[in-house]
């Protein structure tokens, strides 16, 4: 009984301790932004490994998600004789929800896990302490470029995902199922609002990029310096990111589109 209480207390303390460490870590990261501007090459290289290398999975998934939306939407709408509204369904689902959320989940699985594993391995092999020995701040040299690269890449990836998805929906709806092309685009334009829908989607992707990358670099920096620790931290990154993205998505949607 007593030992169970002890375990519970230890678990609770550990959780809050990690939460506090994570936020202090974030403050140090954000303070490093000025130094980062002097080291743009570092940021560019990380943009490549975090953003460009995530592109294939984003483009392919976006195309398939758009195509599935086109197919499903058509099958539902055709019962009501409203297949002209297919464009609206595809664009609004992608821009408001699926674009930001699915690209954030893919980003967490592809780029977030890689970031955690890389930083975690650097810590395990004592490269980070080695840098400190050489009076190089690993926070600024290693962590900050990766963090900001993730923050910048995510909105771009989301925009590409949504655009490719719309084209995928267009390909299935207009190309294969014979929805009228003009109606497809005009209904889409008439009912998708620039500020309401697209800018809110961009805001979502900014928030998701920030949170997912933050979780990834923190888990890597905070890993237990063993091979098992790195493996656990990588798993935790994906799980926590997915949870954070979905929970935040609900909060943001409620804020933007209103729970009235």
């Amino acid at each position: 009984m007593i030992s169970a209480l002890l375990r519970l207390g230890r678990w609770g303390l550990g959780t809050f301790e990690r939460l506090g460490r994570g936020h202090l870590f974030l403050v140090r990261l954000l303070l490093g932004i000025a130094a980062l501007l002097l080291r743009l090459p570092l940021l560019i290289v990380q943009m490549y490994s975090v953003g460009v290398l995530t592109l294939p999975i984003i483009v392919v998934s976006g195309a398939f998600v758009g195509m599935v939306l086109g197919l499903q939407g058509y099958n539902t709408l055709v019962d009501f004789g409203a297949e002209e509204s297919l464009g609206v369904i595809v664009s609004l689902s992608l821009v408001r929800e699926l674009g930001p959320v699915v690209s954030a989940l893919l980003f967490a699985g592809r780029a977030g896990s890689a970031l955690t594993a890389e930083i975690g391995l650097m810590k395990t092999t004592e490269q980070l302490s080695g840098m400190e020995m050489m009076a190089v701040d690993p926070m600024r040299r290693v962590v900050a470029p990766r963090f900001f690269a993730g923050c910048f890449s995510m909105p771009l990836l989301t925009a590409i995902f949504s655009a490719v998805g719309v084209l995928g929906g267009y390909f299935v709806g207009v190309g294969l199922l014979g929805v009228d092309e003009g109606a497809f685009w005009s209904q889409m334009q008439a009912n998708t609002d620039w500020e309401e829908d697209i800018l809110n989607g961009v805001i979502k992707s900014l928030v998701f990029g920030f949170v997912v990358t933050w979780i990834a670099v923190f888990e890597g920096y905070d890993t237990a310096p063993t091979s098992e620790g790195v493996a656990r931290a990588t798993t935790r990154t994906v799980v926590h990111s997915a949870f954070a993205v979905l929970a935040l998505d609900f909060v943001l949607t409620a804020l933007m589109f209103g729970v009235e």
Partner: protein
Amino acid sequence: MRQSRAVELIVGLFVAAGLGALFMLAMKVSNLSLVAQEDTYSVTAKFQNIGGLKVRSPVTLAGVTIGRVAVIQIDSQTYEAEVRMRIESQYDYLPEDTSASIYTAGLLGEQYIALEPGGAEVYLKEGDKIFLTQSALVLEELIGQFLYSKAAGES
């Protein structure tokens, strides 16, 4: 860092692709291209009943969209709906006795205002009123009238 030129080029292309995708969403998917036209004049019309008319509903002339509904409010004197519409400046040759009717696009479509030009020599300009209006058809009233006329015919 060896192939930094190539990496920089690829990252630049990536950023350009992302911004291009956003631009495509703005221009092709959303209504941004329709909002940007500020060159309009506004006229108002009063209706007994506007049905499902909304702000941003189209205003058409012979089926061509020439403007959009800007404001919908209640006239506190007459209890009618007062609709202000913004019409693009290039269509500045609408006669003063133009009439406005509210129609429905298709069976389940959105409602829009259709303008029918009259024959007056004077044209509508900024701030003018359209006096001849026809309200939206309310389906229940229509069915009620139909049933009533059937019943009257049988007796």
